[in-house]
């Protein structure tokens, strides 16, 4: 029996060691391909990147995009690569012979693409407005549209500053609960939290340790938020919230301050500034009377 056990251990070692050695010391240590100076054939697997690229007027250089109802209308002419929440076919991406691919964080497929000599730029998730601005500048730099990017970035900053200064000295900051998919809300580390705070509100979930926490109903009822924002993307409907047991006495429900937030309000593209502005209008209607 001892011989058998030794054999098994050798077998296990042989399963892992050769691969490790191969990886570590492979002679041709492939560097990931570098991003070209002025990419001409861009495939965008990131909805955010698609939108930003069109904003920067680099849309003509896009050859393929992920399908989405939120895409700018011009995107319809590009090759549709499938929906993000299905799986997208890498073959198609490679088949379009792009010289740059914008991707989200699915690392496996990115490697496959890179191995074919196609550079991949990963669109980092932005959990604050500052990061969104940085993203716009980065993408601008990559596609050689720095000046357009700067314009957008400066305009965004202007609008942010406008809101921030006006709500800075307000005494009453409303307590805000953001209702997302399946009862989740948004905590620190999420863009929505950043928007709520900058717009002069107090996020009910501001002390939670994770970005997408599940808050207990009791806690929400007890804290009695002044405003409820409902995520159009997957969140409950306004009527449904009004019908919930025990929620009728919440200030937000009694005073009918439940608002719907479309997806682009909280997505990390320049349009989220509209979200910021709308939040500010909901939170402090007196200040923002148009």
């Amino acid at each position, binding site marked *: 029996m001892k011989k058998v056990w030794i054999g098994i251990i050798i*077998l296990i070692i042989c399963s892992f060691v050769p691969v490790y050695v191969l990886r570590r010391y492979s002679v041709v240590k492939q560097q990931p391909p570098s991003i070209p100076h002025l990419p001409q054939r861009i495939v965008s697997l990131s909805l955010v990147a698609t939108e930003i690229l069109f904003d920067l007027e680099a849309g003509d250089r896009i050859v393929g995009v992920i399908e989405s109802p939120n895409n700018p209308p011009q995107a319809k002419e590009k090759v549709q690569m499938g929906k993000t929440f*299905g799986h997208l076919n890498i073959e198609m991406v490679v088949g379009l012979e792009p010289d740059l691919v914008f991707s989200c964080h699915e690392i496996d497929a990115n490697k496959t693409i890179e191995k074919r000599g196609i550079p991949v730029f990963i669109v980092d998730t932005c959990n604050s407005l500052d990061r969104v601005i940085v993203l716009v500048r980065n993408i601008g730099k990559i596609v050689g549209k720095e000046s357009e990017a700067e314009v957008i970035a400066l305009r965004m900053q202007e609008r942010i500053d406008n809101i921030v200064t006006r709500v800075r000295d307000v005494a009453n900051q409303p307590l805000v609960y953001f209702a997302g998919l399946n009862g989740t809300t948004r905590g620190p580390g999420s863009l929505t939290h950043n928007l709520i705070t900058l717009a002069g509100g107090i996020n009910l979930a501001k002390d939670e340790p994770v970005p997408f926490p599940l808050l207990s109903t009791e806690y929400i009822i007890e804290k009695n938020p002044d405003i409820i924002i409902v995520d159009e993307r997957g969140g409950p409907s306004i009527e449904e919230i009004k019908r919930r047991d025990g929620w009728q006495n919440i200030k937000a429900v009694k005073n009918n301050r439940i608002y719907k937030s479309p997806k682009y309000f909280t997505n990390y593209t320049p349009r989220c500034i509209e979200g910021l502005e709308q939040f500010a209008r909901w939170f402090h209607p007196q200040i923002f009377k148009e």
Partner: protein
Amino acid sequence: MKAKEFFSKRKFKWSFILSGLAGGLFLTFVLALTVGSVNIHPFLVTKILFSKIIGIPRTWPASFEAVIIGVRIPRILLGALVGAALGVSGTAMQGLFRNPMASPYVTGVASGAAFGASLMIVLGIGSFWISPAAFLISVSTAFLVYSIARARNKVPVETLLLAGIAISLFFSALVSFTQYIAPEKQLRQIIFWLMGGLWGSNWDKVITCLPPILLGSVGISLFSRDLNAMLSGEEAARNVGVEVKNIRKIVLILASLVTSSAVAVTGIIGFVGLIIPHIMRIFVGPDHRILLPCSFLAGAIFLVWADILARTLIAPTELPVGIITAILGVPFFLFLLRRRKKLMGF
């Protein structure tokens, strides 16, 4: 008929079956290579393949070559390897536990592997370490399940399976937890990985899972006779000279090795490990010497086929392959069941 004659005849029959399956696998490869969302004519595919061996002047666009060599071939190979791994480990588990419901998932092995891998992803540790971590946790899970089920030096089969299901659910919950706390960066990664599929196939993954799956499968098949004897019961096996306790541990370790390597590269693909052994058992009988290699080949064929469907049915969007395996596998299995009342002797 004399014994020698009987066994020679059967050896011939078995060789025939295995060659048939191997041929089927080859044909499946060929079909899979010519099909995809990028339309490349089969003749061109052959030319591209041959150009890798002998030099032919390139008359096709570089992207075609990239698609075939860089995307399709690794994907098909990965599908075959993972399907084979699940087939073999499912067979080993069912034989070991003498229970038709045993599968890599029910015994907690796959869930442990999934947890190990997702833990590595959340912690952001390098991609090489995902497989060994999955294996270590997977093996620990197997032993945890084993020791929970042990009562007074005996390991009753039913308790083993109950413990396996419990631990399996526990690790599934842990995996959900890692999803819950994962920063958004890794969250997407885990979600896509958990959906289970050959979507992110690349040569790295093929190289990573090839040694453990092949070595592990060969290892398990070396214990075919022991598994056969154990089908008659622990005591009957001991009477014939099988060291049941040791063999159990070894087969569990090897099956964990094979399963965890598969799960670490493709996430959770269900049904293959449960159904393929039953289907093959109906065709070739319970003898592990033929059943294990057949499950290996049949598992490979099945998953590559499922993947062909997954990537062509609503191209360019892909369906998660787990859905295809369920839709294909379960009705076929039920049909076979009706035809043949006995299911693994139950």
